[in-house]
């Protein structure tokens, strides 16, 4: 193992988030290396979504310390490396999955060799590329959002309930996406109530106290 591998992608020490001076979660300690998957576990209201929003950079760090690649926690260091998929999918309902991907690609760039058309086929939306998102089912909307994961170049995926609304094939798809991403040296933090069947090694578990 080279020294650069030893530096975790993401490291939290005594991390907590305060809302109106009340801690929402934490203090949490964890480290996530490239090629690792972490499952965030906890009951409803234990702060899983809050943790992901904080790691995405939408919320400020309450107490404790976060490091990105061993350096400080600032926006420019992480720019483009983190992809967040939350409960709100960030899709424009009046636009087609293809158009939505085009905008995302315009903002983030794309992985080499991937195009909007190819990733939409991969997530099982062939034939629905040009249908307005509002006409798709909840599961298909989710798939359109998942297509972003395949197209955009990001090292760390933050997925909030990626299995929600998906059928069996969709759940298998998410697992497959995660396995490929982890095998390719990426990292992911996933919150989920459902059983995650992950075949790329034992995932890390981050337990929220709440």
């Amino acid at each position, binding site marked *: 193992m080279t020294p650069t591998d030893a530096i975790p992608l993401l490291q939290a020490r005594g991390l907590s988030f305060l*809302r109106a001076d009340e801690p929402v979660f934490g203090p949490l300690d964890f480290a996530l290396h490239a090629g690792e998957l972490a499952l965030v576990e906890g009951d409803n209201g234990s702060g899983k979504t809050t943790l992901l929003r904080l790691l*995405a*950079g*939408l*919320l*400020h760090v309450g107490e404790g310390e976060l490091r990105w690649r061993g350096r400080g926690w600032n926006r420019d260091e992480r*720019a*483009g490396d*983190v992809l*967040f998929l*939350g*409960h*709100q*999918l*960030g*899709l*424009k*309902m*009046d*636009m087609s999955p293809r*158009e939505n991907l*085009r*905008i*995302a*690609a*315009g*903002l*983030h*760039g*794309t*992985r*080499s060799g991937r195009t909007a058309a190819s990733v939409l086929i991969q997530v099982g939306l062939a034939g629905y590329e040009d249908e307005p998102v509002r006409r798709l089912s909840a599961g298909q909307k989710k798939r359109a959002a998942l297509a972003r994961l395949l197209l955009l*170049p990001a090292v760390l995926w933050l997925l909030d309930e990626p299995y929600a609304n998906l059928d069996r094939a969709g759940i298998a798809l998410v697992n497959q996406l995660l396995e490929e991403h982890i095998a390719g040296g990426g990292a992911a933090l996933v919150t989920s109530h459902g059983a995650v069947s992950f075949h790329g090694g034992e995932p890390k578990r981050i337990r929220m106290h709440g």
Partner: protein
Amino acid sequence: MNQASLPRACAEVLRRDLTLAWRRRGDIAMPVLYALIVATLFPFALGPEDALLQRIAGGVVLVTVLLAMLLALDAMFRSDIEDGSLEQLVLAPQPLALMLAMKILAHWLTTALPLIVVAPLLAGMLHLPLAVMGVLLLALLMATPMLSLLGAVLVALTAGTRRSGMLLALMLLPLCVPVVIFAAGAVAAAQQGLPWVAPIAWLGAALALALVLAPLACAAALRIALDA
């Protein structure tokens, strides 16, 4: 890996907002219809007296256009907040202020520009002399972007709150007043044959300042609004 370029990101954001506006063109027509109705009602209420209408024409058109813009203002970021696109925009590796400037530009193009296009018609219905029409359009070209920019900052500030419409109107009023005074001042001066360049120049100076500062303020305000 294809890196995202800044010009392409700007173009995509602008294109998206214009496409969305086009797909909901009924919403664009609303402020224009409102302005038409208000301007049509004035002669009915005040009587068809030429001299009176001529005197108030410039002011009425200006105020009508600015009020019509207010109708569409609080929708500027609403749908983006609801569907999560704003979060994605904030997290994108692009300068947020510039992306928001594109959104504000799209908003101006879809709400203010149609109003400026019908403004000569409104002014004509109120018998504004043709010679003054150019000054009125110039004043509108300065005043409407100001309102879009200032409005965007206030909308961003109130983005986190429910029923922000009332708060927005209250906060926008004091900021609108100088814009209306200078714009209407220029039109009135032109109508009386006085030099009208000074008020327009003041508006231009304020617009230059707002163009630079408002997107930055808007970005900071939105980051705060999401951080809750």
